[in-house]
């Protein structure tokens, strides 16, 4: 990218541009592309670029349709990258309402605003979990796998991501706006600088000295993806949509990007507990695996059930649950050939380098707090 001329993306709006993934999208736009960048977020204080970068920030709630359209009218984006989504941490009715409001209604509002203001392309951040029922293995799954919807989908968050993805893809070349192109990126296990969930949790396990337990046989592969690679995939998709928009012919089925969903990973699945151990090692864990006790999955499930029952009895939300055990023992990895062929995607940063950077960042955060 250094010697080559940077590709043009016109005016790009990043919705959720102050969030974990969104601010990396903004960073990559400034680094790798020639474009004008605007950001829409609920609050634009954190992860903000210095003024010298020329990013224009708009504070807006995407579920507020009128406000959103007025921002679109001002920013006049050619491309919209929609990364905004609430953190899928809680699983109660309040957060369910929030998931529905932001993910489904908010995305519907974004689509409308795009169609009304002549936006050419929309790239939506979906999730690799839309094809997971949260208990069955996904072995080298690709885009042919069906979405898990309705009562089969036990995670309401995934249900709303899937519903939103369907709205986005249905809007591609829709009759009311036939030149508007869309696609969806389905990243698996995003991690990196700014990650306050997965990484934070893993390091916590180490801090509490709980690296000595392994549940399951650790032969289950999992896909984790460094955030910069996910951002990179979004921008490749945006560029492909703009190129499609500029050409007069509709692309052939086997090369089209518009109206399509793409799984994005680091293209290197790893054994679940190896990933955890790599993070612990990067955080300074001095242990090998001699101290590790292996609990069979069934024992883990029993302990999880006991923990849930106990927490229910004392009226506290459980942290150690059966679902956690299931995730730790589940195989969940993807074949990303489609993204490689059609988007020309290849991870920019390897998983081990990604872990090094992410853990370094997390440790710096810890120090700053002290």
């Amino acid at each position, binding site marked *: 990218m250094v010697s080559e001329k940077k590709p043009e993306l016109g005016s790009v709006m990043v919705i959720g541009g102050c969030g974990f993934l969104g601010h990396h999208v903004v960073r990559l736009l400034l680094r790798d592309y020639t474009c004008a960048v605007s950001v829409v977020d609920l609050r634009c204080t954190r992860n903000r670029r210095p003024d010298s970068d020329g990013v224009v920030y708009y504070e807006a709630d995407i579920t507020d349709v009128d406000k959103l359209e007025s921002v679109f009218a001002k920013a006049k984006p050619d491309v919209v990258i929609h990364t905004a989504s609430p953190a899928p941490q809680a699983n109660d009715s309040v957060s369910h309402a929030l998931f529905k409001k932001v993910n489904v209604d908010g995305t519907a509002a974004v689509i409308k605003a795009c169609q009304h203001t002549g936006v050419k392309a929309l790239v939506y951040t979906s999730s690799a979990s839309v094809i997971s029922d949260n208990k069955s*293995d*996904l*072995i*080298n*799954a*690709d885009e*042919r*796998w*069906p979405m*898990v919807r309705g009562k*089969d989908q036990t995670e309401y968050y995934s249900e709303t991501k899937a519903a939103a993805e369907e709205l986005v893809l249905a809007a591609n070349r829709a009759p009311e706006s036939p030149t508007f192109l869309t696609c969806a990126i389905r990243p698996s296990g995003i991690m990196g600088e700014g990650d306050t969930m997965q990484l934070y949790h893993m390091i916590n396990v180490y801090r509490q000295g709980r690296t000595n337990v392994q549940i399951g046989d*650790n*032969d289950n*592969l999992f896909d984790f993806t460094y955030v910069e690679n996910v951002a990179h995939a979004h921008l490749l998709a945006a560029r492909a949509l703009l190129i499609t928009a500029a050409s007069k012919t509709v692309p052939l089925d086997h090369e089209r990007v518009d109206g399509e969903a793409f799984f994005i990973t680091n293209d*290197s*699945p*790893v*054994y679940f507990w*190896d*990933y955890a*151990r*790599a993070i*612990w*090692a990067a955080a300074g*864990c*001095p*242990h*090998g*695996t001699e101290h590790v006790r292996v609990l069979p999955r069934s024992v883990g499930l029993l302990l999880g059930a006991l923990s849930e029952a106990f927490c229910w009895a004392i009226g506290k939300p459980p942290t150690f649950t059966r679902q956690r055990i299931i995730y730790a023992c589940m195989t969940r*990895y993807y*074949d990303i050939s489609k993204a490689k062929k059609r988007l020309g995607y290849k991870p920019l940063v390897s*998983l*081990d380098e990604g*872990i090094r950077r992410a853990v370094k960042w997390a440790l710096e955060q810890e120090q700053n707090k002290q």
Partner: protein
Amino acid sequence: MGVAKQAIYYAFHPNELRSIIQWKVWHEPVHKRDPSKETATEKSCFHYLNMTSRSFAAVIQELNPELLMPVCLFYLVLRGLDTIEDDMTIDIKEKEPLLRNFHKYMEQDGWTFDKNGPNEKDRDLLVHFDDVIVELKKVKKPYYEIIKDITVKMGNGMADYALNAEHNINGVNTIADYELYCHYVAGLVGEGLTRLFVKSELANPQLLVRMDLTESMGQFLQKTNIIRDVHEDWLDKRRFWPKEVWSKYVDKWDDLFAPEHREKALQCSSELVLNALKHADECLFYMAGIRDQSVFNFVAIPQSMAIATLELVFRNPDIFERNVKITKGDACRLMLESTQNLRVVCDVFRRYARRIHKKNDPRDPNFLAISMQCAKIEQFIESIFPTQDPKKIAAGQKQVNEAGMDTGDAILLVLSAVFTLVVIGLLMVGTAWFLGAHLNKFFDGLDNSLGGSVKKPTSVLGHEEL
């Protein structure tokens, strides 16, 4: 191992003994040599093959008759070259032209070579090389051209290395040097073999387009040998581990063998294991291109042995103290599994990839890269033999959605089955009774055997009497 020691070993490793017996009893070669129809010089060639090769002699002799002699002779020619190259008693001035012109000598009727030192173990082959030359003349022209072409390349490569003082004193420096060396030692042989397989139509011609797959086959075997033999080579004052790698872990080559540097040495070996593992998926891909069972066995056996050896040497401190080798039982099991089909060989690769990942140590700087590489082998196997079928998953979802009715149906089915059984049972018992069976005796007997009611009162009474 003494007999007693062996007996004890197998008493504790019955699975290995079972594999050995299975291999001896059940292995049926696809093709067998027929010594009764062989000429004297053919017999002589097989004699030298058996004498010079530990690992390849058996598989070569089970090859498809079309390639049996060409591959045997190809092996003997290369072994002949090797015997000259290895011999340090031959002066370089004499050695160089011998190596570079070997392809000419192998065309001269009656050519033999007896100037090898007395300790050179395969010197007899060259002393009787005229027998090999007689057979070489009978090989079909297209096959002979391939053998000759590789002999030219190999001879020149060996001569270059023999002249390369830097290499002879210091050994291999960069990873690129290391891979170039492996190319000369194993990659070239692989090239010759692939061309023979394709020419005889026993392999997919696409393998000639993807010569990188052939290269991987050779690199995988050779790198594994180099890692395994490090101690033996060190004693012989030869070094094939690239300096670019070991200098990251120790300052001096000899430090690698010092007990106080053991952990660093292990980390160094795991970087080389990682480097070798990168070829594993391409090896599987190559084997998918083989169309003949005997050729498949010929290429698959060494590959399975190699991945098992990589697992054996991975994080194994013994490699710095002595020679390590896979056990005979494991070798027999691997041979059984490598003489079936690609799917079984893939299972072998997955099994050993998982074992390697289980031995992986998070403190090793190559930890995650090795985990990723093992996973990559698994993912590659999934891409050729997928476990899941999206169509079936979609169909399964539909079924689950209709499950409400299905449970009702299932209960009804079970109930009707039970009902039918009861009716049939009653009918049979009724018929038996009707035909005069003494059912009351049967029930009495049953009653008795359960500590029946007839005896009960007596025993109770008995107790009361006490």
